[in-house]
Every structure is written in C-alpha cells, then in structure tokens.
C-alpha cells in the first residue's frame, strides 16, 4: 500500500518539479543564461496568485491565471532590467559574462525574496485546490487536485514538445541552441528569439509557482530552496537537455518521497543532494547532457 502511495505522490511531485525545471533548462540551452532568480519568479507567481484568489475573490482559477501572468511579467523584468544590460555591457569581458549573470540574478533573486517577504510576510500560504475532494486510485486516497496537477504538467510538457518540434518558432529555438551564429547568418534576429524564450520561461515558471502553491503552499522563505532544487534537477539531467531534466525531476521527486515516507520527513532533501554529488563524480555532464 505504501509503495503505491509513494508511486502516486512521487509521480505528482516529479511532474511538478519537471515543469519547474524545464523552463530553466530551456533558458540555458538557448540563451546560455542560468537564472538564479528562478525561485523568486515562482514565488511571485504563487504569492500573487494567492493574493488575487483570496483578497480579490478571483477564485482558484482566476488566481492561477493572475499568478501565471505575474510570473510572465517577472520574467520580462528579469530580462530587461538585469540580464540584458549585463549581456550588453562593454565593461564586462565576454569570458566573464556567465559569472556576472550568475551574480546579478542571484542578487535579483534576493531582492525578490525580501520584497515578497515585506509585502506578504513569510507565512506559508496555500492556494485553494482547483479541484476539491479526494478520489480512490487502487485503494489509495489521493486528492483530486494532485491528479489534476500531474495532468496539467504533462499537458504543458506535451505542448512544449509540439511547440519546439513542430512549429517554425520552435525550430528557430532549437537552431539557436545549436548554432546561434548560423541562425544570425540566415537572417533571423536573435534578440526576438531570446524574447520568445523568456516568454515561454515566464509562463512555465509562473505555472510551476501556482501549482506549487496549491500543492505544498509557498512562503517567501522558500525562494532559495526552489532555485536550488531547480538547479539540482537541471544539472543532474544535463544542462540544456529538456528530456534529461524530466528524468532528473522524477529521480529527485521519488528520492524525496521515499525518504519522507520510509525514513523521516526531516531528512527529505538529503538523498537528492547525495545522488547529485555522486552522479556528478561519475558523469560530470549529467544524465543526458552533451559535453
């Protein structure tokens, strides 16, 4: 029975982590940006969504929509205020751009966290479930909301797959991740492509934040941990590899769930960290990464 419970919970958590990490890895693959404000953006989506749902009577669906929109806006602000000026700065040598973007987004993430703490305090808030009630899956009582979250995650991942592989803009994204210079030579404007990536990223991070808020609840104190877990998943899967991130999301999701159920809930994050360190020693490029 407990095995089934772990299977179901781990699947939901893994799907949620997957959606949280896919945008992050896409961003790195196409734009070469590691956004350490990732947790902050998820936080904004979750908290603003909750605020709209509770204080303005938007209801769970309205709140989710407002939250995703907030994630999108936060993503644009991150791009235009922090990342683009750093990329365009003449005073920063190209070889050090990566370090500056890491530091810049780290600071920006802290600003978001403290700002949200100021506006919403650090009490955890939970978005009301979009589908109330529980259902019975092979004898395991599972909240309907959990099922809905897993379904939404997979629909979104499927849409992303279609977008990247079947549409014109998606093929441009792929091309940009393989050879940006070649794409520029063919007459495509890279900055437009980057803007598209930041839009997709914002929507995905917003969705992940909203779903997280309705599953676990969010608090402004979580921003760092959210960034760290997305970072962990993405590195474990291989930087820039979307399928790798999905696999890694489930590895981490199940490792955490198993620890929480079978050992102790307080030790929850530790196995994931150990897996990561071991995996990096054996395979530094991650599970499905290219070198």
């Amino acid at each position, binding site marked *: 029975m407990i095995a089934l419970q772990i299977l179901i919970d781990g699947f939901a958590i893994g799907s949620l982590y997957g959606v949280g990490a896919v945008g992050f890895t896409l961003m790195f693959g196409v734009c070469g940006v590691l956004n350490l404000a990732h947790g902050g953006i998820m936080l904004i989506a979750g908290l603003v969504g909750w605020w709209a749902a509770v204080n303005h009577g938007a209801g769970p669906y309205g709140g989710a929509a407002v939250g995703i929109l907030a994630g999108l806006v936060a993503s644009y602000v991150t791009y235009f205020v922090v990342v683009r000026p750093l990329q365009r700065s003449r*005073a920063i040598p190209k070889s050090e751009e990566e370090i500056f973007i890491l530091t810049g987004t780290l600071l920006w993430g802290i600003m978001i966290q403290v700002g949200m703490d100021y506006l919403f305090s650090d009490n955890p808030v939970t978005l009301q479930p979009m589908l109330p009630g529980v259902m019975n899956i092979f004898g395991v009582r599972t909240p309907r909301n959990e099922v809905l979250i897993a379904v939404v995650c997979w629909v979104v991942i499927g849409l992303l797959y279609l977008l990247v592989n079947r549409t014109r803009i998606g093929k441009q994204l792929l091309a940009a991740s393989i050879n940006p210079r070649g794409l520029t030579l063919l007459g495509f404007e890279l900055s437009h492509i980057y803007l598209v990536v930041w839009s997709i990223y914002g929507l995905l991070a917003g969705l992940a934040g909203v779903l997280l808020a309705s599953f676990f609840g969010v608090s402004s104190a979580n921003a760092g941990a959210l960034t760290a877990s997305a970072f962990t998943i993405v590195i474990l899967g291989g930087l820039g590899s979307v399928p790798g991130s999905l696999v890694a999301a489930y590895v981490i999701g199940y490792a955490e769930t198993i620890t929480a159920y079978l050992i102790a809930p307080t030790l929850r994050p530790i196995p994931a960290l150990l897996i990561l360190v071991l995996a990096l020693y054996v395979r530094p490029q991650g599970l499905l990464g290219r070198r």
Partner: protein
Amino acid sequence: MNDIRSFPDATRIHRRPGLLRRKGLWIAALVVGVGAAGPTWMSAYYLGVFTVAFYFGVFAMSWDLLFGFAGEVNFGPTFLIGLGAYGAGLMNNAGLPIPLCLIGGAATAVVGGLLLALPALRLRGPYFGLVTLVAVLLLLDAIVIFAGFTGGEIGMMVPSVLSVSATVNYWYALGFLVVSAAILFTLSRSSLGLILQATGQDRTEAAALGFNVTKFKVAAFCISALFSGLAGAMLTFYQGTASVDQMVDLSIAVQIIIAVVFGGRRTILGGVLGAIFLVLFDELLRPIGQLNTFVVSAVALLVILLFPDGVLGYALRWTDKR
C-alpha cells in the same frame, strides 16, 4: 575570446610603475594606522561592529583568491568557514585551549578545502558551483542532525572567549586582518597569483606552458580554506558561539560574494572594502528593518551593472589612465 579585454589585469600588472606601488603602500599604512587608533575615537558598540567587519573582510579575501584568481565559482565559502568555526568549537568543548582549537579549526577547514578541490579538478563553471552549494546544504543538514553536539540551529556555545574587552578584541581582529591581507595580497601578486589567473582564464594553455595546473589549483583551495577556517574559528571565540545563522547560512555566502564584487574582484583588498562597507551600511539601514537586505542587494546589483570592476577596480583603472 582572444582580444586584449579578456586579460585586463595582465596588462595592468606590467604597466604599473614602482611609484604607484609605493604610494599604495603608504595609503595602506595610513589606513591601518587610523584603524589601529580606532578605540580612541570609536564607541564600544562600533568597535564591535568593526570587529565583525574585519573577520568578514578575511572571508571576502579568501573567496576572492578562489574566484578572482583561480576562476572557480565557489558558492560555498561558508562551507569552509563553518568547518573552521565548528571544528574549533567542538575541540574547545572537549577541553582544548584556544590556540590549539584555532589550529585544529583551520586544519578541519583545509581538509574541507581539499574535498572541494577534488570536484573542482573534474567539473567546470556552473557544475562546480552547484557542488559547492550542495556542500553547504549538507553541512547545514549535518549540523542540524547532530544537534546534540553542535547545538543545531540555535548555535553552539564555547567555554572560552578571546577576550572580554572590546578594545582587545578589536585589535585581535585588526591584526588578523592586516596579516591575512598582507599574505594574501603578496601571494596574489606573486607568480602563484599570475599562474592561477592564467589557469582560471585558459586551463589548457596554462598546462601547455608547462605549469602543473592541478598543483596550483589545490594550493589555492588550501590557502583559501586556511584563512576562511581560521577567520571562522576566531569569530567563534570572539562571539562565544558558533552559529549557523552567522557562519554557515547561504545568505552569508551571498554577502561575501556581494562584498567581493562590490569592492572589486581580483584585487584581494577590494573584498575588505566591500566587507566593511556592507557591515556599516547594514548598521546605517537598521531603522528601515527587513528592507535593508533589499537595499544592499539593489546597490550591489547597480554596482555590477554600472561598474563591473567594483570600487577598487574602478579606482585602479582611473589612476592608471591618468
């Protein structure tokens, strides 16, 4: 990649005349003199503030040696600091005297530095950064799990303190800062510093020139760990506790990074400027409460957007131009 802008410091070192060096030495002596006279013109409260700032300055310099010179993005300076602090604290609780504990704490940190150097030889950039982040998280977890020995999140009291006098503590901290700064600055301007810069910027080329890259990287990690750990241990015996909030937490790591980037990376001394600025700024902004972290981060972000070389880097460039 190969334009001269990639190697700004290489050009600067060769152009720097002996006179400026001497001028820098005079300025440093003057600053240290004014600092040493601190107890005559500062209240006990501000002596305490500066004492913490000085230890923080050593944290920042040690981090700059790894980041600015060896080119390693170490998100976990507090892993080394925490090992030094808790190593020394545990030994003190076992009944050893302070000097032995300081040596023991520093040795623990150096072992930690070697542990970090292992992945650094295999992994690059963000991958290594994540491993250092994980090292901090694991240390935090270990401290909480073994709360019976370490006091967990509350912190671990130590029976001994360096001194009960604010003035004496201030001088200890200042002396430690000056000695560390002198050693680290000299190292960074020696051939070690140049070779580290070369390996940080292009490892293959440095190895092709015949330098033993592994040896120098490991040395950089050990030196950085030695000073971080020693500073962590000293801070523990100044405060009478080793605490997670003040020595291991990731927010401390972030502050160290801010201090170095603000002061000017790859300058060693810039980190001290940044650390003192950060601690003082924090004091000044105390009235606005929790928003002060917001303001400090915003200022640091503005600095890296507008003056990516930091305050000292900018000043050096300006004097070079004249």
